[in-house]
Every structure is written in C-alpha cells, then in structure tokens.
C-alpha cells in the first residue's frame, strides 16, 4: 500500500490558556476525500492552518507522502503540494481573477509572460474540471460561489496534490454546493487528495470516503464513511453529552409584542440577506430561528434592533412602528422596552477594555438612574453592577476588573444581566451560548425561560439546533434569507435539518 498523503503525529497547539489541538494524530490516504467533522470550536480549522503553515504547532510532526516535512510557512506547504481554500477567502478584491491566481506563483519577474502562461493553464483547468470563470473579471464583482472557484483555481494552479477546504459550503447555495461536490469528486478521480472540514453531517455522508471526528481539541475517531452512520458521528461529535433539556412548563402566549412584515435587508455589497421576512412574537413565548450561519438570521435581528438599516418592510413594537428603514435608534428602542443581546459580544455587546461596571450600563448609560445631570452617578453604577454580579453569579466578583479578563461565559452573563435586568418587554437574543462553558449554558437557558414565564416576548437565534429545540415554543427556519417553515418544539432534528438545508421547500412552506 502506498504511503498516506498526509500524516499528522502528535500535534499540539495552544492559544494562551486555550488548548486548541491536543496530541492529534491523523492519516489521510492518497486519492481520497477525507472529512474532518466537529462542532464549532473543536479545533478543525486550527489543525488545518497548522498543516498549511499558517500557524505553528507547539509540538508534533507532519509527514507528506511519508516524508517528514517541516512546514513553517504557507510557502513550505505549497512546495509540498498542499493547497487550501480558507473559510474567509484570501483574495485581493480589486484584482482580476487571473491576477489573484498568479499572485505568489508568477514564475517570472515580468507579468505579461506569467499572465499569458496562466491564461492557457486556466483554460486547461476549466476544460478538465468544469471550473469556468472569466479570467479578467474583478473579484469584488463576482458572486461568492465564483470567488470560491477562484480559490480552488489558485490551489490547482500551484499544482497542489492535496487540497484542504475549510467549511466550503457555508456561503454557498445548495446548487452551488452540489456543483462544488462534483468538482471535488472529479479532482479525486484525477488522483488528488482532498480534506474537507465541515460541521455538516449531510456533506460528510454525501461525499467523503473517510471521516475523522474532532471534539474539544482532540481527535476522537476515524471511520470509513460507508461503515458509519449519521447517528454514530453525531454522538462522537458531541460526546456522551446528555441533551440539555431545560425544564419548562407550557407557554401561555398573549398578545403580539413584536411584529415583522416583509422585511428586506441588504448587506454592504447590496446582496439581499433578508428577503421579505414576516414573523410575530407574542408575549410569553420564545420564538427560535434556526438556520445555517449566513442565511440572514444575523441581519434580521440587527435590523429589528436598529443596528443595521433595512431596505423595506415594517416592524411594529407593541403596535407602534420602528423606523427600520431610516434612523432607528437602538437607544430609543431600549426606552420602548426592546432589549438586544447581540451575537458578537466581543465587538458589539461589550467594550472589552472597559471595567465590568462600565459595561453593565452600555446602552443604558443615559438612564436617569445612572446619571446626575450630565455626570455619571458612579456610586449608583457600581452598586447596580455589584447587585447584578451577585444575582448572576458573575466571576470573579469584581466590578472593577477589565471585561477582557472575564471568561466567555461570564462575559455573556454580563450582557444578559444588563439586558434582562432592565425588565424589557421584548428580548432579542443572538447566539446566547456561543463560546460559553456548560455550567453557564444551563444558567443562561434558565434565565431565558424565566423571562418567558414572566410574560416577555423572546426572539432567539442560534446555530445550535439543540438550543433552539430545547428553548423555543415555536421554531422558524431561515434559509437563503427567507423563512422556509415553522414547526413546533417537538419537531425532529432531521425534519429541521432538511428545512435548514433548503430541501423540500414546497412541503416546508405549508
């Protein structure tokens, strides 16, 4: 039997106190598609970045084709025949396709020769693999799917034998994803080795030959895809973790608190991210929005909360409109009883350089309670912060500590305490437990249920399907900017998964 294409032996990598990879061993056979699956934060991307020379392992050995290979820079990786398509594309946006393809692999000091060579090489790749793209198009004018194709072309142009793709379908439509898979199979038939990083089981089953599962920085198993099942992989991914079911009683929904009608939001490039979404949230219920990241959920809640401008549509808060297409002011919305726990607590929900107490008033800093005239009422602010620290068990219990020095779970508690303790009527929550330790997850879930039981309207988005299922009273599924279905809390994971994948749209819409 031939030497494996890649062998990783005893790879360790830490970022400060976080051990992203511990003692990882991995073998990838030549000419196969090898999947690496794991939850967000399991260490998949870190491992592949080490293989590509973007990060340095603290210890361990890399062998390519059986030969111990020192990969210190991407250049070493490229020389060893490794190419990588990053999750965030590494393209120069105002360059043409061909300029991006040759960057770093020009071969000649003068461009006209290298461009001419590249042009014929691109034609060959286009012919062989069906990778059509106009070589003179400017990247920023191309749709995301084609930009990804350019990334693949870049790797092939450098003559890679081993191609790593990091979450390649996150930004693709199902049709684009299918096309990508066809290309990957063709590459495999040509003898290339492909490593596919994903957290989607469907993709693993559809395309890989072997699959390795990562969990919390360790490699827990490797299976032949044909010999395993979705259930087994799912269990390996999450470990023997009992599903976090929160005890909760029946919802007693009352009147509509938040009403969204035909909301359309475009991103800065003019791409429609939210496409005519309508939904209602009633007092005393949690409405969860499930969906694969990037299907418009983030833009939806940002538009409702006033931190992103919408193009059209109306949003009613307690029957009164929010100026979502004009100058909705998050401060004014807070006054009207709408609280928002943003998805990105590091850059949006918190100022990491602030003391804890300063963050405990962010957004509410103009409430009379915290002010004496134009001055901050320091005593009131600190007393208030200490009260929240006690009530939410925020550790360390130091309201003068810089926020950056708290753990993820405690940072999230700071945000939740701030938003919940203002006693809002409507609470919008994005990814409440992302990067949060297990103990804090339970606490946060209980608080959200308690909010519901107090008769508040809660709108929840999360990429964790478990979280959506265990908290929501109604589940809406978003796909490609639209709400493609509504289900009860007892909907099966498989059913929701299909909706999230955008399949059987017609049935789902009923």
């Amino acid at each position: 039997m031939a030497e494996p294409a890649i062998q990783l032996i005893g790879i360790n990598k830490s970022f400060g106190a976080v051990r992203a990879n511990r003692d990882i061993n991995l073998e990838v056979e030549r000419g196969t598609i090898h999947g690496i699956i794991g939850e967000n934060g399991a260490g998949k991307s870190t491992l592949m970045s080490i293989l590509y020379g973007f990060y340095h392992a603290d210890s361990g050995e890399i062998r390519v084709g059986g030969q111990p290979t020192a990969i210190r820079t991407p250049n070493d990786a490229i020389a060893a025949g490794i190419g990588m398509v990053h999750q965030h594309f590494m393209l120069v946006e105002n360059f043409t396709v061909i300029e991006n393809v040759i960057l770093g692999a020009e071969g000649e000091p003068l461009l006209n020769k290298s461009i001419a060579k590249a042009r014929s090489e691109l034609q060959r790749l286009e012919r062989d693999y069906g990778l059509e793209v106009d070589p003179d198009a400017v990247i920023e004018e191309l749709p995301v799917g084609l930009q990804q194709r350019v990334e693949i072309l870049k790797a092939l142009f450098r003559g890679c034998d081993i191609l790593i793709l990091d979450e390649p379908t996150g930004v693709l439509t199902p049709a684009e994803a299918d096309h990508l898979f066809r290309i990957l199979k063709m590459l495999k038939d040509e003898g290339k080795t492909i490593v596919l990083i994903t957290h989607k089981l469907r993709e693993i089953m559809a395309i890989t030959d072997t699959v390795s599962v990562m969990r919390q920085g360790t490699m827990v198993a490797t299976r032949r895809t044909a010999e395993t099942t979705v259930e087994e992989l799912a269990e390996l991914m999450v470990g023997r973790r009992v599903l976090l079911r929160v005890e909760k009683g029946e919802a007693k929904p009352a009147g509509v608190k938040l009403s969204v009608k035909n909301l359309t939001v475009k991103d800065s490039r003019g791409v429609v991210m939210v496409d005519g979404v309508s939904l209602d949230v009633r007092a005393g219920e949690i409405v969860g929005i499930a969906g694969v990241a990037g299907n418009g959920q983030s833009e939806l809640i940002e538009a409702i909360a006033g931190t992103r401008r919408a193009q059209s549509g109306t949003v009613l808060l307690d029957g009164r409109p929010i100026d979502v297409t004009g100058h909705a002011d998050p401060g004014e919305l807070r006054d009207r009883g709408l609280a928002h726990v943003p998805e990105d607590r590091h850059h949006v929900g918190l100022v990491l350089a602030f003391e804890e107490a300063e963050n405990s008033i962010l957004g509410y800093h103009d409430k009379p309670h915290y002010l004496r005239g134009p001055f901050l009422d320091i005593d009131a602010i600190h007393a208030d912060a200490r009260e929240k620290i006690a009530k939410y068990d925020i550790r360390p219990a130091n309201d003068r500590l810089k926020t950056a020095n708290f753990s993820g779970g405690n940072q999230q508690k700071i945000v939740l305490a701030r938003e919940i303790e203002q006693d809002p009527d409507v609470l919008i929550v994005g990814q409440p437990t992302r990067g949060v330790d297990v103990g804090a997850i339970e606490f946060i879930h209980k608080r959200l249920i308690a909010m519901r039981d107090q008769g508040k309207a809660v709108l929840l988005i999360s990429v964790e399907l478990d979280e959506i299922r265990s908290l929501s009273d109604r589940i809406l599924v978003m796909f490609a900017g639209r709400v493609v279905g509504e289900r009860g809390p007892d909907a099966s994971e498989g059913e929701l998964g299909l909706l999230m994948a955008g399949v059987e749209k017609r049935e789902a819409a009923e």
Partner: protein
Amino acid sequence: MSAPFARLPRWADYGLVPVINLFVAFLVAGVVVLLVGENPLEAAGILVKGAFGSGQNIAYTLYYATNFIFTGLAVAVAFHCGLFNIGGEGQAYIAGLGVALVSLGFDSVLPWWLTFPLAILTAAAMGAAWAFIPAYLQAKRGSHIVITTIMFNFIAASVMVYLLVGPLKPASSMAPQTRDFLDGAQLPKLGWLLEAVGLSVRSAPLNVSFLLALLMAWVVWVLIWRTKLGYEMRTFGFSPKAARYAGISEARIIVVAMLISGALAGMMALNPIMGDQHHMTLDFVAGAGFVGIAVALMGRSHPAGIVPAAILFGMLYQGGAELAFEMPNISRDMIVIIQGLVILFAGALEHMFRPAIQTIFASISPRSMGVPAPKGKGA
C-alpha cells in the same frame, strides 16, 4: 487607542513602561549630543539646572508647560474618541486670532478679569470652529481626519500670515504683528506664588493661564471618566460597533469630541498672547500643537500623566534655552529631536519593550499575570 489589554500590573503599565520608553528616548538623544561633540551627562545637568535651578527658571518651565498642557489635553480628548487630531497647531493659531480680536477690542474698556473670560470663550470657540470642518468631513463623508487636520494646519498658517502682514498690522509698523495690548488685555503674572516660597522669579512670564490649564486638566478628567459624554466618547474610541449598538450617534460623537479637542488647543493661544507677549506675532504657536502629541502619548492620555509630561517638556524648552547658551553647539532644536524620539518610543514603539517586561514579570510573579492570552480562532 490600539493598546492590547493590559496584562501587567497597573503601576507597571502606566508607570514603568512609559518610564522605560522615555529613558530610551533620552539615551538616543544622548547619542546625538555625543555626535555634536558634547558630554551628554553634562548637558543633562545644565538642562535640569536651567529648568529648575532658580525661581525664574521654574517659572519659565511652568510657562512653557502651560502651552503643552492645553495641547496635550486636546490630543488626548480626541484619542479617547479614537481620533487623531494633528491639527492642534492650526486650531491654536486660529484661536489666537480670537484672542487678539477680543484683546484689541476690549483692552481699553474692560479690566483683565473681564477680558480674560471673553478671550477664553472666543479662543475656545475659534479653536473648535477650526476643528469642526475636519470633524464634519470625517463624520459625514469619511475623509481621513489625520490628513484633513494636517491640511488645515497649512491653511491656518496661510490665513494668519495674510492677516498679520495685512489687516491686523498697524500701518505704522513693519513687523508682522498686532499692536501691543493695553493693561486690560494683559494677564497677571503668577510670580507671587513662587515668591511666597522664597524664590525670585523676576520677569518670568508665568501667568494665570497656568491655573486655567490645571483647571482644564481637571475638567478633562471629569469629562472623560465622570460624564455621560465622556463615557460615550470612550465607547466609540474603543469600539465603534459597540457605540452603534449602544445608540451613540457616530457623527455626533466625532464632531463633539473634535470641538472639545479644538477648544482645548485653542485655549493655548491665551498663554503667549495675553500672558507674555501682549501682542500677536507670526507663528506664536511655535510647534506647541505638535508637542501636544508627544505629551498625550507620554501621559497615556490621562490628565494625571499629561500634566507631568507637559512639565517635562516645559523643562526641556526652558532648560534647552539655558543649554543653548552654555553649549553653543546645542541649540533649542535639540528639544525637537527629543520630542520626536519621545513620540517614536512612547508612541509608535510603545510595545517594543512590553514583551520583555511581561516575561520578566511572569518569571518574578506569575500570579500578577493571571489573565489568559487572547483566544485564537478555533474550528
């Protein structure tokens, strides 16, 4: 501004690191002194003696420091809002026009204690006005404020040259300056403060503007750390996204911060014009706007750091004058070099020694470092 989160004890972060940076800056300055063939230690001795050796010297040192407190505060206020105001020089220059007009208009009718508040308000307003256009363009049209404030420094210089060689110059005079002010626009000296402790100040120009500068340092402290506005400025300075989330208007906070910054820079004009020369000359700002950058960087944008940093630069200016007298090879331009070196080591290279210091601290007392490093991005 872009400082990573402190992993050192506070005293090391705010005390030790700046002192080390400053020390290196002076070390390099010492090399320059060697290059011109003088003894750096001797030069340092003369400099310190020249700055603090007598009551008069101290008064001069504090007179210069007054300018730098104002401009240092101006730069610091903008820093807190994430803005780099390089335009203090021009804002102070234009503000001088306001000071001069008030002085020329009222010096014969009002006593100084009425002219002074009027002049303060006018100086602040004119300085703020000159900062307004760059601020507005940054807020509304995204024009890079560093570039526009630089351009406005040059435009201010042209305006003032035009006025001082033309409309503002008395017909009888050849020099490009206004007429001398009468008593009503001459600020009282503060010499008695030093004389009270037994020092002789003779004619040193230290005046009540110094007290105004100290007052402003306190006001800035209150503004930044004790008011809603300061809170909003700091929020925006650290994270524009968080500011938007918190309902803080980006355009408003940029403009307000720059108006305050411009007003503080503008007040600097009071000190030389009403406090010392009693007329307005060409180029009376003499680089104080730029010294403010060094002062703010060294003082880590905190008034408690800015005042001593300003006094340090006052010392360099006053001591440097004495030094130029004793060592003809070293003119006062030596200060400009030191200023540049301080900006380089305390500003652009502020993190150069930090890793080493952190390593030392970690090996002495690991507990003081009990903060995890920033997380890498997992899969």
